[in-house]
């Protein structure tokens, strides 16, 4: 699980909020613990962990609503692996 993009994102959220239990499909905004500080941490985590840069036009709420959506965002922005 931790090897997957979604798994790494889940682990980061779980590390920051040990008392929360979320699934990949849960709307983290509806859980009430998202603030601008955590949003900034989340963006920094995604950029560092997956080696991507989040452009301003991708910083929209729907891309961050669930773990699955964030994993999809990372998939779109991550460089294609070099052809063998």
């Amino acid at each position, binding site marked *: 699980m931790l090897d997957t993009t979604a798994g790494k994102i889940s682990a980061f959220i779980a590390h920051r909020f040990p008392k929360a239990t979320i699934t990949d499909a849960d709307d983290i905004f509806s859980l009430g613990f998202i603030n601008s500080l955590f949003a900034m941490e989340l963006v920094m985590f995604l950029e*560092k962990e997956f080696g991507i840069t989040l452009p301003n036009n991708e910083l929209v*709420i729907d891309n961050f609503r669930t773990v699955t959506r964030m994993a999809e965002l990372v998939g779109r922005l991550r460089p294609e692996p070099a052809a063998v």
Partner: protein
Amino acid sequence: MTIDQLATATGERVNAVLRRTVLDHVAPERVAPDRTVPTRPAPDRAAAREFVDEYVVPHADRWDTLGKIPQELLTRIGEAGLWAPFLPAEVGGHGVSMAVLGEIHEEVGRGCSSVRSLLTVHTMVSWALRRWGTETQLRRWGAALAAGDLLGAFCLSEPGAGTDTDSLTTTAQRTDEGWLLNGTKKWITNGQRADLFLVFARGPHGTVALLVPRWSPGVTVLPIEGMLGTRASMLAEVAFRDVALDADALLGPTGLASGMVLTGTLDLGRYSVAVGSVGIIQACLDACSDYASRRQVRGSALRELPLIQAKLSDMVTDVRAARLLCAEAGRLKDLGDPATIMATWVAKYFASCAAAKHASEAVQIHGANGCSPEYPVARFYRDAKVMEIIEGSTEIQRITIAAEADRTWGV
């Protein structure tokens, strides 16, 4: 002759006109001079220390009394490459790390908190531009900010809203051409002199950040004087009355992420204030060690007294602890690690409280001399108090750090 040299020679009003003429009526591409190859080595702690000892320390008390930093020093800071050395070489910076930037700001803070505060707000604007700016915005403003040809100021606080950003009343309305800005900002560091304001306002869907040139019609600046500390930081109240801005004034995203521009920018400001506080403690230690070794009490040096030794030992210990906390925050920033945000809160909390405590003790060690303008510790004392208030008050820091404790270790 540079803009600054000409402006110094001809006065402040001409200064503003010159900047407007050069920077507003020239195509953005031409505003960015050819600074892609730095002409001097990247600044570091040693260079900053040398600069501060030569150009800042001998004059800081006088500037504090005058309530102003002279243009000559602002120009020298630019020549030394100290305004925004973290900016990449492509826009005229040196790409120095956040760890080194912290060391530079500590050294400047050791010499004069007012000068450091100018660097702080300029850093905040420059960092926000680099992090959130479009290519067009970087081309238009980046090189001038890197060189210090333009100085930035951070406009968040209002007469009725400081920490409580939900209470901001400044508004940014969408128009066909861009934005219409209305409101008043208060306690704006370097507001008297800055050329480019980063203004936070209530937009259609949350807080927005706008880049507002000082020369925009509808911008007025009212100096604030006689403050308790950082008296030479050229504070101002800046009013925006029907200021029309083009769409390119918007910095960063809107909606969900708009708050991140503020969070990230404040994080940099908090980091600078934290290291600046370390500089104050170091300055207290330098002053007190010198004074205690020369001042005689009943035939022996003040430093021989156990109670004075206790104060000095606590200064030594706290300056090291605060410096390490700041270094850790800087290291995490350089790694892009999100843990830097909380590390910076902790560093600023510790360093600012320690600075206030030790500046008070520094005055105590100096006795009546410490209350006089003949020694710098009275200035340190007044400046240190400000550190406990700006970029997140001590109370807000405690709330935030306690919330982190609850989130991490609570049951």
